[in-house]
């Protein structure tokens, strides 16, 4: 089994290597390309206006892919929730061996604090949460994570201000069989509403949100 995967990778590399060198040779023989329409700038070159973040920002909606559904006109109701967060990546590190410490606040993202926007009132673990924008952060423990709702919006993720905590919810965390390079937050449908799924490395936690019936 191991030998097969080795040979598979080896032959892939062998197959790619000549393809790459051929391309380079061809490019050398070509006349100078028209520089007015093709300028090659390294992706990480300094941007004088605002740099491109190493941990890119992303947005997740509930219902999932709401903006696409709205564009396609397959949905006419308002969105129920969305999360704006930045996505750090492991880059060879392990989550709790190298990056995070148990019992210390973790910003559930990077850069600007992670923002949950509720478009309607919801209930979580029998507590009512009003529509609005909240900062989410987490205090991870070995078997559970405490997800904190905080009102200090438009802030930076580091050093959340506990005097502005609204409420918190403790949820179980489980191990997954596959590892995720990028931190991921996404909504998944449930019978009573949605789960906020938080997954990174080989861990996954879910915060169930119940949408009250109107």
């Amino acid at each position, binding site marked *: 089994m191991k030998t097969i995967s080795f040979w*598979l990778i080896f032959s892939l590399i062998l197959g790619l290597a000549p393809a790459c060198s051929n391309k380079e040779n061809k490019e050398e023989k070509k006349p100078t390309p028209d520089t007015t329409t093709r300028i090659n700038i390294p992706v990480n070159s300094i941007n004088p206006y605002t740099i*491109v973040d190493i941990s890119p920002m992303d947005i997740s909606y509930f219902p999932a892919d709401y*903006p696409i559904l709205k*564009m396609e006109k397959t949905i006419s109701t308002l969105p129920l929730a969305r999360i704006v967060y930045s996505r750090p990546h492991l880059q060879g590190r392990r989550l709790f061996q190298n990056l995070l410490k148990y019992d210390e606040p973790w910003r559930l993202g990077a850069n600007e604090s992670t923002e949950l926007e509720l478009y309607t009132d919801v209930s979580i673990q029998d507590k009512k949460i009003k529509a609005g924008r909240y900062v989410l952060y987490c205090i991870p423990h070995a078997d559970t994570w405490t997800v904190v709702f905080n009102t200090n919006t438009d802030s930076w993720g580091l050093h959340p201000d506990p005097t502005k905590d609204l409420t918190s919810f403790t949820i179980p965390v489980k191990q997954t069989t596959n590892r995720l390079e*990028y931190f991921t937050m996404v909504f998944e449908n449930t019978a009573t509403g949605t789960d906020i799924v938080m997954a990174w490395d080989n861990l996954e936690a879910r915060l169930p949100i119940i949408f009250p019936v109107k």
Partner: protein
Amino acid sequence: MKRSILCLAAIFISAVLYAQSLPPVDKSPMDMSYYPNNYPVLKIQDKLTEPLVARVIYSRPQKAGRAIFGGLVKYGEVWRFGANEATEIDLYKNVKIGGKKLKAGRYTLYAIVNENTWTIIVNKETDTWGSFKYDAKKDLLRTQVPVQKTDGPVESLSMVFEKTATGMNLVVAWDTVKVTIPFNF
């Protein structure tokens, strides 16, 4: 041997399926700019000197060797001013753009680019995708701004606010051009 190959294929397919079940990292990463600049950092450092006025959330396509304006972005057509989800501006106070009032709230931004001027469009249809189903009936205002050259090529679409005597500008730069959109408040 055959069984091993089948087994390998199964592992490969399941790995691909798992990778598809959670969203991948976008090719055009999303970003956020505030006015005052770096508002979130200043806020946690207790260094704020001005109240929060605006933030823009947009995705940042890259030039990647392509001709952008007049090429990828066609002159005279509505451009989504970003990538993926429609570019969004949150205004935390009432402002004026080109002499027209705009109330505090959340809006989407689009642009019609031409060689010398861009028309900036403020539209009220939020939480949507790109400009593919852009609806001019939902426009709140349009304003024209002149195109300027940048000092050097800009690889990723960039949006940043700057302070002015009468409020702020939203500076939008990509490739070899930029525009400054004045907001008065």
